[in-house]
């Protein structure tokens, strides 16, 4: 897709989402239209993105977390299979007690993805139906993908 076409699509999206979320914050990125939300307003925003006609973000294809040492950032990648447009949503979480509402009831793929983020980052997804470790054993101490994680036995440093 040509860059201009992408930009036009992105601007159109911003206007549309702005109608529903007047306080929407945007991040300037080279590729994606990126919406910034507060964890507290995420459940409301998620429903809007999924069910508003014209937005219809029905496909959550990537959900992940980034440890910035001072805070965590949750990143959600959405696409609409109806309209073909894409959107990234980011939410900044507190580093001491990272917590955000689950979206696994809206996009069911989130159940596994959120369990992965819980397992490897220790993000607490509120009201998640089954928040347990996914890859590591239940007794595992710590969250390996955090930047301050140390494991003298299993980790090899280059």
């Amino acid at each position, binding site marked *: 897709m040509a860059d201009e076409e992408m930009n036009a699509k992105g601007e159109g999206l911003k206007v549309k989402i702005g109608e529903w979320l007047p306080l929407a914050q945007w991040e300037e990125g080279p590729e*994606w239209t990126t919406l910034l939300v507060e964890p507290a307003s995420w459940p409301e925003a998620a429903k809007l993105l999924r069910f508003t006609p014209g937005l219809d973000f*029905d496909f959550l294809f990537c959900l992940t977390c*980034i440890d910035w040492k001072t805070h965590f950032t949750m990143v959600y990648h959405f696409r609409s299979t109806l309209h073909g447009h894409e959107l990234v949503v980011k939410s900044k979480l507190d580093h001491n007690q990272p917590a955000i509402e689950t979206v696994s009831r809206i996009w*069911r*793929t989130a*159940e596994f993805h959120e369990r*992965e983020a819980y397992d490897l980052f220790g993000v607490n997804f509120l009201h998640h139906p089954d928040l347990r470790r996914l*890859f590591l054993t239940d007794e595992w101490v710590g969250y390996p*993908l955090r930047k301050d994680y140390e494991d003298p036995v299993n980790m090899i440093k280059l």
Partner: protein
Amino acid sequence: MKNVEEIGTTEQGELIINVGPQHPSTHGVLHLVITLDGETIRNVEPHLGYIHRSIEKMCESLSYRQFIYVTSRMDYLSSHINNHGCAMCVEKGLQIEVPPRAKVIRVLMDELTRLASHQLWWGALAMDVGALTPFFHAFREREMINSIMEETCGARLTMNYMVPGGVMIDLHPNFQPGVKEFITHFKSKIDEYDELVTDNVIFQNRMKGVGTLSKEDAISYGCTGPTARGSGVRCDVRKLFPYEVYAGLRFDEIIETGGDCFARYMVRMKEMRQSLSIIEQLIDNIPEGDFQAKTKAVLKLPKGEFYTKIETARGEFGVYIISEGGMTPYRIKFRSPGFSNLSALNHMARGYKIGDLVAIMGSLDLVIPDIDR
């Protein structure tokens, strides 16, 4: 992952059994805890992590040339395509223009990989539902692709042939004749595949109406690839977001609307013919020129975020690099198709018989290292 195996009965008299982590039908170390009411499946709970190597953490200490090699070890049946996706992401960050010859070589390799992967899946699926012979047929043809790969890339499974800027070395002189010989051979054999398995009544009875997944559920569970296309979702990255030379090629996106195991089976069978057609279109039209763009010895991605997606044999593979401008990625996330496809397993299997579970898992084409990473 679970340490204690739970075996026994629930309060309602339902039986809890474990399948895996070492079970032939799971094709890898997948552990399922299944709740059964008689023979009927009430719940399937996957326990993952038996081959979790924390590849994402590993990549944080590897350079932008090195990390690509690790990705061959995720979806080992699509290793070319995994490498390709990562190379594209690095190229996007550095704005490297890939020479036309390299683009065509990459697409050829991708499609050969897709064929080899689908052949293995076909043989293994038939074996799962009780037909042993197709496995040998599939491996006979797959062997030809492996030999072609071995000549050019020096490896048969984890090729590590794609590098940022192009491909590692030029094609072997035997590549073109070898691929042409393979096309002629496989064209006659794929009809045999249909006669042997597709038209088989016993096979159809095992597959039709089993493991149904609706279009809405396929989207909600984030399914991609043949799994989603079997439920009527348009999701082929090669068509939706064309990369390399796919925009100029004639091929169809295969969509089936049945949503059952047989629909997913038919998508892959038809995709094999499409891949053959793509290879045929390209094999005589490999442009002359460089096979690799000139790149610096040490690659440093600018500060920022880069995401690329690519269609593997199992679906959409995403590479998400967050760079702080250093020699290594700050964080890297692999969106593996198998992980999302597996999340739909419980939904698909509930209400069917335990024997159907093998067919359902086979039709999902799971590669466990791709799920666990």
